[in-house]
């Protein structure tokens, strides 16, 4: 009898050690986001989404029985912090995969470190340079600024507008967008008749817009995120400028409409289908994915933005790859991410390949217009 008791205790102890030693060792997902600072507009919903999605996956039993553990740091939008925190994720926290990098500056800064360490990294930022040229370990899920530029030009051509005024901020997103617009303009038959700039913390852009008013522009493009585009939008109305205004995908959130108020009427911008999910035809394969994410997010935090959607896509692509790779082996997961095909995310349908580490095409963007305070798809 006594012998049996000992055996049971021993067995229980062994089981516990085994479970501690690896059977349910969590898969560590590292993240560095700009939760505060100028890009908190983007980083905050990204973090909430990651936390929400990780909880959801764990509630369903994790990946092959292993729960996910999210470790994240706030970079405040400072590239130097981003690099240090990525080193902390890799060296100290020993994460298996990194999903993060709110801004292009943050993402670009960490690429050499990620490549050196050999860890899969899915960036949530926009710049084309992140995946062009292709880097072995780096992927991205957000639309590029080049796509936004192309989409805006496509719409301008449809309306027969060719002379355009440009106004951008002094942030990385703004400058990179401006560069793509200027680069694409000649081949798209667009001429820029004004090219103005402002500081992202400025409180008034009427001097710049006054200059634009006296140019012969037929439309205005404002590329940026945060409060500045909302001020630009209000200033345009204030000055009585009646030109079509195009914003970038950087303002595709309810906050922009709230801030700009009535001045936002008629503003057009390229955006992911997430903000107009209910207007999609039922036959659209993206619709159920979009509605599911949106309902879940809005039940918990309030109005959804496309940025949180990027975090969702990034994490889900990583999860799918880990399922296929049967674990978190870095090299295998990397190969599986590269093999992502027909993945339906919030930003569009992803088809990655060894030469394309983003996998979205121009269809992923919808041209939307603000109409009575809500987004409407422009046909």
């Amino acid at each position, binding site marked *: 009898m006594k012998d049996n008791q000992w055996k049971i205790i021993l067995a229980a102890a062994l089981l516990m050690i085994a479970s501690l030693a690896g059977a349910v060792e969590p898969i560590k997902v590292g993240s560095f986001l700009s*939760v*505060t600072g100028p890009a908190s507009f983007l980083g905050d919903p990204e973090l909430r989404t990651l936390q929400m999605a990780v909880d959801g996956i764990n509630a369903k039993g994790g990946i092959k029985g292993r729960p996910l553990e999210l470790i994240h*740091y*706030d970079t405040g*939008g*400072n*590239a*130097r912090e981003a*690099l*240090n*925190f990525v*080193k*902390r994720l890799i*060296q*100290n926290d020993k994460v298996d995969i990194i999903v993060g990098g709110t801004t*292009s*500056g943050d993402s*670009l*800064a960490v*690429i*050499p470190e990620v490549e050196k360490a050999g860890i899969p990294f899915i960036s949530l930022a926009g*710049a084309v340079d992140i995946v062009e040229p292709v880097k072995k370990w780096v992927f991205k899920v957000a639309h590029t600024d080049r796509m936004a530029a192309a989409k805006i030009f496509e719409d301008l051509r449809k309306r027969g507008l060719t002379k355009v005024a440009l106004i951008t901020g*002094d*942030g*990385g997103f*703004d*400058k*990179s967008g401006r560069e793509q617009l200027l680069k694409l303009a000649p081949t798209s038959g667009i001429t820029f008749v004004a090219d103005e*700039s402002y500081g992202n913390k400025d409180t008034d852009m009427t001097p710049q817009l006054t200059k634009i008013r006296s140019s012969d522009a037929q439309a205005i493009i404002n590329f940026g995120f945060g409060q500045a585009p909302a001020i630009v939008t209000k200033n345009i109305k204030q000055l009585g400028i009646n030109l079509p205004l195009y914003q970038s995908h950087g303002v595709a959130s309810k906050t922009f409409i709230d801030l700009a108020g009535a001045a936002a009427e008629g503003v057009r911008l390229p955006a992911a289908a997430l903000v107009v999910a209910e207007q999609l035809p039922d036959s659209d394969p993206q619709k159920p994915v979009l509605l599911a994410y949106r309902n879940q997010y809005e039940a918990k935090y309030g109005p959804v933005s496309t940025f949180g959607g990027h975090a969702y896509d990034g994490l889900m692509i990583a999860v799918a790859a880990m399922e296929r790779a049967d674990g978190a082996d870095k090299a295998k997961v990397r190969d599986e991410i590269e093999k992502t095909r027909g993945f339906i995310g919030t930003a569009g349908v992803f088809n990655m390949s060894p030469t394309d580490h983003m996998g979205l095409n121009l269809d992923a963007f919808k041209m939307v217009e603000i109409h009575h305070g809500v987004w409407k798809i422009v046909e």
Partner: protein
Amino acid sequence: MRLAGFFALAAGVIALPVLFPNNYFVIVVGIAAGLHVILAVGLNLLMGYAGQISLGHAAFFGIGAYASAILTTRYAWPALLALAAGLVVAGVIAWLLARPILRLRGHYLAMATLGFGVIAHVIMVQATHWTGGPDGLTGIPPLNFLGWSVNNDLHGYGVVAAAMLLAIWLSLNIVDSRVGRALRALRGSEFAAQMLGIDTSRAKTQVFVASALFAAFAGSLFAHQQGFVSPDSFNLTVSVELVTMVVLGGLASTYGAACGAIALTLLHQGLVVFEDYEMLIHGALLMAVMIFLPQGLFVGLSQAARWAWRTARGMTP
């Protein structure tokens, strides 16, 4: 015996990575702390000894970093030569600025240096053609000493640690030199110093240039170490942080400045886990230290240590 503290510090710096190999908090945080020490020690020469405030010191840090970045990536200069060029550029700019700027006093000086810092930052953001704009420049090669490349963090730690010790040693010597004595007189009363026959404007210029050189040196190391530069490493917030390090550690003490630099670097790493509460705690700690230890951490803590030692000795006769 004057250098006993210095050797103790050097021993600690060497012992840390041996005791904790491959530890993020020693190697990576250590590099950041080391660079901050160089910056703070240099700024302390100006603030602590010459009594002149600078709210634009990040500009010199940035000038060093961008000189290295631009010369190595655009003109393929060797890293060490770029570092030297950065020092020359920062030194010349500081020398040109010194006379008009150091005529100003107190808050007017603070404003002028702040303005200089803002102008430098605007140029870094706007002169995209040279500086790469807000996203900065990438692909900066590591430092290379006759074929020995500083291409991993441990090497980087070694180089930054050596540079930091050099900066502290230089600072200790400057403070003890003739110039240093002139400076201390200047801090007490500029008028009295003039009466004693000290060329105050010359002394101030020298220390301003020296302090800019420390910052540019740290900037070059920083650029080669992390491989990229972007303007947000050199903005007003950074300038303010540098002043905070010097004051937090204790003005007019080389070790005080070093102590403040290390404390603030660690504080940031420690507080990041508090997420949304980080800012609140950071502000409260800063205020508390300055209210209760107005002489700074280093002086305050060493006084406390001395007191504890004396009471302990008193109790065991």
